[in-house]
């Protein structure tokens, strides 16, 4: 290697390191800042009560419950549809024009601002289907919003399954459906899990699409299933409401800390699950 080249190499390496350190520092600073501002305001009472003028409490229990409801309902609907669509696109559809159009549409949908999904959800689910401001309307809206992400991620996972597995199984007399069930889906589980984490991240972080659909309700559920039809703000929506009032930032930061913790737990849990899946094989 000549001197000029070595210098260039050194320069590039430094650049990579500096970028890495920069990202790491920014991330850690944000997390610490949020925790520093937020953690002191979190008390047991804060976690287990509802906001009430009468009792003088400002708890977030309803929002935690609403968030869990929306995550679960959205994933229950969108994950199977997303996986099936991805399998269809990748294994059955072939390479015709229609598929190209579907893929293009999916990509475009993934990039649309969430407020537009909110507007659509309001017009279609809340007003059109008369579901009202409800957790169900919110979850259905988010289902449409995250479907493109799930489809794309699962499709990428399916594409990485080597073709020779498909050939090998066909050579043994397996049908396409059998190969999908026994080889493709099991091999794509890490990708499916990634799709689920990405989705949870988007659901937890979403406010614009939910304000017009799930509404701003803050009461505790009256029943396990009834709650689906009642209005309910998620943690992020509640954070947004407190923040725009501009009174104090203590509660928004407390909620933010909880959100960060939830996202961390989800990420770690998924990594652990993915690892145990890989070990089995």
């Amino acid at each position: 290697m000549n001197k000029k080249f070595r210098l260039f190499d050194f320069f590039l390496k430094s650049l990579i390191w500096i970028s890495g350190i920069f990202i790491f520092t920014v991330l850690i600073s944000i997390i610490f800042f949020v925790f520093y501002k937020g953690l002191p305001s979190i008390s047991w009472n804060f976690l287990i009560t509802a906001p009430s003028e009468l009792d003088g409490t400002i708890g977030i229990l309803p929002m935690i419950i609403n968030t869990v409801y929306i995550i679960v309902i959205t994933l229950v609907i969108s994950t199977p549809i997303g996986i099936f669509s991805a399998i269809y696109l990748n294994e059955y559809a072939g390479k015709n024009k229609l598929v190209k159009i579907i893929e293009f549409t999916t990509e475009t949908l993934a990039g649309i601002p969430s407020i537009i999904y909110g507007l659509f959800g309001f017009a279609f689910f809340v007003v059109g289907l008369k579901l009202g401001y409800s957790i169900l309307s919110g979850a259905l809206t988010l289902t449409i919003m995250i479907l493109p992400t799930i489809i794309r991620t699962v499709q990428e996972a399916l594409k990485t399954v080597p073709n020779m597995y498909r050939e090998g199984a066909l050579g043994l007399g397996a049908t396409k459906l059998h190969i999908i069930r026994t080889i493709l889906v099991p091999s794509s589980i890490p990708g499916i899990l990634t799709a689920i984490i990405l989705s949870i991240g988007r659901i937890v972080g979403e406010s614009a699409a939910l304000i017009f659909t799930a509404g701003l309700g803050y009461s505790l559920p009256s029943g396990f299933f009834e709650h689906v039809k009642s209005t309910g703000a998620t943690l992020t929506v509640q954070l947004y409401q407190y923040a725009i009032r501009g009174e104090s930032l203590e509660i928004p930061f407390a909620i933010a800390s909880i959100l960060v913790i939830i996202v961390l737990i989800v990420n770690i849990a998924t990594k652990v699950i993915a690892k145990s899946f890989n070990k089995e094989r």
Partner: protein
Amino acid sequence: MKMNNFKMQSKNLHLHYGENHVLKGINLGVRPNEITALIGPSGCGKSTFLKTLNRMNDLIDNVKIEGEVYFDDINIYDSKVDVYLLRKRVGMVFQKPNPFPMSIYDNICYGPKLHGVVKSKFDEIVEKSLKGAALWEETKDRLKKSALSLSGGQQQRLCIARALAINPEVLLMDEPTSALDPISTIKIEDLMSDLRKKYTVVIVTHNMQQAARISDRTAFFLMGDMVEFDETEKIFSMPKDKKTEDYITGRFG
């Protein structure tokens, strides 16, 4: 009625990929319990021909097949033929070892499970198949380990065992040793002379010495034609066609 004692036989078989005329009227009979080798330069159609024997070409877009291929006395291109059952009876080993990403045990059981064999027979099938592929001694203590942890040569023998597990009558091998080191190649060649006792084997190979060493009959393919087909000894000692002679003496290919 069995035809001429052939296990498999193609009659005037033509195959087109779109505009490409890949097989130009092949007439070839494979005798039972023999090893038939298909040799020829790249692109001569030998692998394509092999894949017509268990209809693996069906999966390719734009493929057009004319003529007949008989398996015993069934024309396998007849519309009534169950192609999945055909592939159970005519097994295949591919160029690159392709074990599934699961345990050694589950790889072997994949076929039996698929074809409805009861679970209680699995242990026996696994042992028998691995022994049949000369892999039992190396793997009997690690059957639950991932098949991907095996070496390339072991993986290929696992693929042979996987194919044997569903009791095929014919075994098609598409350059099974081309991705392997010399020692693994020898092991698989040794194995093949054993396989002949129970199965009918058709092997595509790039390696002429390999064809000479292991096969009973050899077919020489060139540009979609089958130039010559005879006992291996005759093909390699006194080929009738000038083109065959040129190829086996290394003048081209």
